[in-house]
Every structure is written in structure tokens, then in C-alpha cells.
């Protein structure tokens, strides 16, 4: 089935005792695509990955990898995928080189081929110097790189990266990102789970947001940002005491996160007009501001809203509930 999508998930459910880990997940990933699966801890990301890599059987529903069912055709699926998990799945007592050779042989490369691939990968992942030290002595970033290399002894058509940079320092994280981008450039299909919005934004073509075991939103980063609204005017006051006065001057303002912050939603296409209206209103009321600017919502905003982080942040504050009238034009 050469034209089957890389991943098709159809109403997959999985419970552990009383806990519902996945409550009906539908998802599709096209070949060559990078899908970011974004969700907080415990949302079901890892459970979904474990179903897709044949480590867990779904209770109901089905999942196919390039057209092959993960339960009934598990051994075919295993030939097509690579997995790099949240906790580096390498052998601590073996050296980096021995790890890669072992995995190569278990991928049924010849001994010589496995040894050659191991050397290539150590070189490529900046581990050549450490190659003959036990993996136990590696730093977190090195372990993660070795783990990723272990998935690439045979180049998988579909690679799962389950929170590949959780717990890494920024430098190690960007090293993993660089490698990931190269794999994508070479045409590897990628399913990446992450709890870092920036990571999904940086690497993924498309993002699926998962929470409480089901997908609650899907689209490109821009789609998702548009979904919760367009631009906002962000105001930072010099003096928190002036906030009530500022709210009176700009009746449609929401309270922002800090005690000196205000935020005004901008109707589509009216960005500059809204900015000037807000600026004039604040000046007329003699309110001192540190910063006024146009801003797009970040994925943080999307995430918080979608996962119910703080619903009040997106509804008008009290006293301005009726403040949807057109402002001063």
C-alpha cells in the first residue's frame, strides 16, 4: 500500500483501570509530514505513541501505519518505524558504540554493516569521542542523541519522537532540533510529542492539541492562533494604581496577566485603527504607559485557552460585559 497515509488513528480508546488515557482519538499524518502532538503532562501523548509503536493494544478503535494495523500486523509496522522515547532507551552498561552495533544487529544488518552504521551515526551525532564509554556516563543530551541514533540504524519511514527534549538544557535541545530538521529535510515522516509550544511551533508542519485523552484542536500554528482570535493591543501601564482609570478610558479592555497589564482584542483588519484609538484614549485620560503594542496571540495563549487554563482571560472583565460597542473611531 504505497499511498496509504503514514498514520491513521480511528477512534482509539485506552483505559488503565479507572483512568481513561485515550478517549476516542482520531488523527491522520500524511507521508512526509511533521505532526506535533502538543499537550500537558498526562494528556495521553505517550499512551498514543505507545499504541502506535505496537507497545500497547488499544481497547477499542484501530490504528494503521502506512496501511498496516498496529495490532494484527505489528511485525510489519515495526519494520517501518523508529521510536525515541521520553526516557532514553539505551543500554546503560554498554558503550555508545556497543549500543548502536547491538541495535543494528537486531535490525538484522550484517555485523559489518552494523559496525559501519554505528561509526557513521556516532560521527553524525557528535558522539565519536565518547563512543567507547559506557552510556551510563553520558550527559542527558548525549543519551538523548544516542537514543535518537539508535532509531536510525535502519532509516525508518516514520519516526516517533516522544518528548525528545524534555529535561534538556537549551544547547542540547537545539542540537536535537537541528538533527530533527535534517531528518525531515531528508523526507522522514515525523510524529513529535511535546509539551513545549515553542518546539511544536519550530518543528511541526501541523499541530494537534491533545488534552484529557482526546484531540481538541488541529491545524498549523497560524490556524490555531487565528482560532482564538486575531491580534490584540497589549498595554503595560507604568503604575498599577491607574488600571481602573485605564479601564474606564478603554471600556473594551480585558485585564491582562500582570497587575499593570491590559489587553484589547482587535477586530479583523482594524489593527492600526484600534492601536490609535487605544493610544488616544489613554493619552486623553492622562494615563502613563510603559508599552503599547500590537501582538499576535502566542501558542501559549492558544494552549491555555484550549486546555482551559484560565477561561476568564479571554472573556471581558466585569463591568465591561456590555462593552462590545464600537469604540471611538
Amino acid at each position, binding site marked *: 500500500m504505497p499511498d496509504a497515509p503514514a498514520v491513521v488513528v480511528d477512534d482509539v480508546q485506552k483505559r488503565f483501570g479507572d483512568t481513561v488515557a485515550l478517549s476516542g482519538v482520531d488523527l491522520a499524518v500524511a507521508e512526509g509530514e511533521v505532526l506535533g502532538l502538543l499537550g500537558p503532562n498526562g494528556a495521553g501523548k505517550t499512551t498514543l505513541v505507545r499504541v502506535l*509503536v*505496537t*507497545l*500497547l*493494544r488499544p481497547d477499542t478503535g484501530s490504528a494503521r501505519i502506512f496501511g498496516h494495523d498496529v495490532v494484527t500486523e505489528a*511485525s*510489519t509496522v*515495526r*519494520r*517501518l*518505524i523508529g*521510536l525515541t*522515547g521520553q*526516557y*532514553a*532507551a*539505551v*543500554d*546503560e*552498561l*554498554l558503550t555508545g558504540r*556497543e549500543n548502536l552495533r*547491538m*541495535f543494528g*544487529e*537486531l*535490525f*538484522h*544488518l550484517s555485523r559489518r*554493516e552494523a559496525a559501519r*552504521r554505528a561509526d*557513521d551515526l556516532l*560521527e*553524525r*551525532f*557528535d558522539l565519536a569521542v565518547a563512543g567507547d564509554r*559506557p552510556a551510563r556516563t553520558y550527559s542527558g543530551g548525549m543519551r538523548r542523541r544516542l537514543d535518537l541514533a*539508535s532509531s536510525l*540504524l*535502519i*532509516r*525508518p*519511514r516514520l519516526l516517533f519522537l516522544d518528548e525528545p527534549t524534555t529535561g534538556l538544557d537549551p544547547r542540547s535541545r537545539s*542540537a536535537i532540533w*537541528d*538533527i530533527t530538521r*535534517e531528518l525531515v529535510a*531528508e523526507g522522514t515522516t515525523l510524529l513529535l510529542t511535546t509539551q513545549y509550544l515553542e518546539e511544536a511551533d519550530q518543528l511541526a508542519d501541523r499541530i494537534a492539541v491533545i488534552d484529557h485523552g482526546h484531540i481538541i484542536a488541529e491545524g498549523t500554528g497560524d490556524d490555531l492562533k487565528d482560532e482564538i482570535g486575531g491580534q490584540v493591543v497589549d498595554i503595560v501601564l507604568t503604575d498599577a494604581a491607574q488600571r481602573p482609570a485605564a479601564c474606564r478610558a478603554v471600556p473594551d479592555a480585558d485585564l491582562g496577566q500582570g497587575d499593570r497589564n491590559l489587553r484589547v482584542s482587535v477586530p479583523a483588519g482594524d489593527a492600526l485603527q484600534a492601536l490609535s484609538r487605544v493610544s488616544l484614549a489613554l493619552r486623553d485620560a492622562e494615563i502613563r504607559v510603559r508599552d503599547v503594542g500590537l501582538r499576535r496571540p502566542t501558542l501559549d495563549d492558544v494552549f491555555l485557552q484550549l486546555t482551559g487554563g484560565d477561561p476568564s482571560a479571554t472573556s471581558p472583565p466585569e463591568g465591561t460585559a456590555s462593552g462590545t460597542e464600537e469604540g471611538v473611531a
Partner: protein
Amino acid sequence: MTITERPAEEPRPSDPRAPTSPAARVYWQARDTWTVTKRNLRHFMRQPRLLVFSTIQPVMFVVLFAFVFGGIATVALPEGTEYIDFLLPGLFVQSAAFRSTQTAVGLAEDLERGVVDRFRSMPMSRAAVLAGRTLADLVRSLAVIVLMIAVGYLIGFRFTQGVLGAIGAILVVALFGYLMSWLFCWMALHVPGAEAAQTAGFVIVFPMVFASSIFVPLETMPDWLATFAAQSPLTHAADAARALSIGGEALRPALLTIAWCVGLLAIVIPLAVRRYRTIT
């Protein structure tokens, strides 16, 4: 991190590596098992604590039992039989039985490690993780027996039934140890964690070892215990190893040992492999 160009001949998953014929499947199963065996033997060599403990313990047993009980045990032995000659073949069995609890511990530790998740997501033989574990433990068991023989020779033990007898004794014990390894493999797949595996293993093995002909002849035991011990596969294995080492009726206990081992292996290996496939 600069990336070197990818070699053109890089293996692709489309390679026809899926075993198609039964012969190919058997070949890959054997090779996967050997790969995992090598890994487990490396582990053993790289855990000095384990290495020291598991070699000192059997040596200690040989020396302590020989000297502590030698004096009183000789009374119960046939005329002219030295206790060390009686004891050492039994200790082979005791050592193999104790060693097999380490199979449970090693497997339980593996299951707690991420690396088994990787194994299970790879297109390798399902049975190789278990087969590689038991095979590595068999190699260790043989090494320990050789060490015990060396120590035994220093304190007066002698094989009297020739080289073939000695090899036969070692093989019988190895087969018995291999069975015990698989039994504990299967058990480790049913208990949570390495400590539980160790405790369960100890609780089962310890009484079995003493309620057998490993340390003393059955005639010295109370009737009820002797009756029970006479049926124990540990008694059969110890009797067979002893007869092949220093003389006596070898055929019956050897056949009984082989029957026990082959019969139970035929049951426990499929059970363990199936359990391994289904646990999450």
C-alpha cells in the same frame, strides 16, 4: 553539529529483511538470541559487585560445607566415601538453582529499563530477550561449575568416572539449571519488580535445595521428608551428577532429570514467551 552526507547505500526499511521462510525465521531467531546473549554477558562482566558475589558465594559454599559438615556427614556416607566427593556434585545443583533466581532478577531489571521498550518496538524475534537471558545465565552457570571444580580439587575432590562421566555430570546440571532459569523467567514476568522476583525466587529455591539429596543422603532424613525429597527433581539431578562424578546408579536419575527438564521446558518456554508478548 554538522552532518556528513548520508551514504548512498544506507539500508532502507524496504529491504526484504522480513523473514519469509521458516528456515530464515529460525536463523534470525538464533541470531537475535545470540545478540542479546552477548549483551547480557557484557552486563555481567561490567558489574564487578555481581561478578565478585556470584563467584565468591559458590566457592564459599564448597569450602564451608566441606569443612563444617564434613566431620559429621561422613558417618552417614557409605564406607570410604569422603564428604567432599559426595558434596560437590550436589553443590553444582545447588549453585545452578540459586543462580537461576538471578535470571528472574536480571529479567525484572530489564523490564524496568527503557531498553526493553526499544527491543519490543523493533522487528526482532520476540523470544530473543528471554532466550538471550537464559542462555547467558547458562554460560555463567557453566563458568561457576568449572570454578567450583577447581576449588574442589584443591581440597581433595576427584572425579572417578573418567572424562565422559565428568562431562556428563556437568551437562546434567547445566540442563537442570537451564530449566530453572526458564521457570524463573516465567515467574519474573508475573511479579512486579526485581526485589519481588528475588524474594519469590529465594522462598521457592531455598527449601527445595535442602529437601533433596544435595547435602545429605535421603536415608538420614525423617520418612516424610525423605519421601518428598525422593520425588524432587533436585534429588534426581544431584544423584545423576554424583553418580556420573564418583560412581553409582547413574542411568535412572539422569533419565528422570532429562524427563523433568524436557517436559517442563516444553511447557514453560511457550508460556513465558506468550506472557512476554502480552505484558505492557
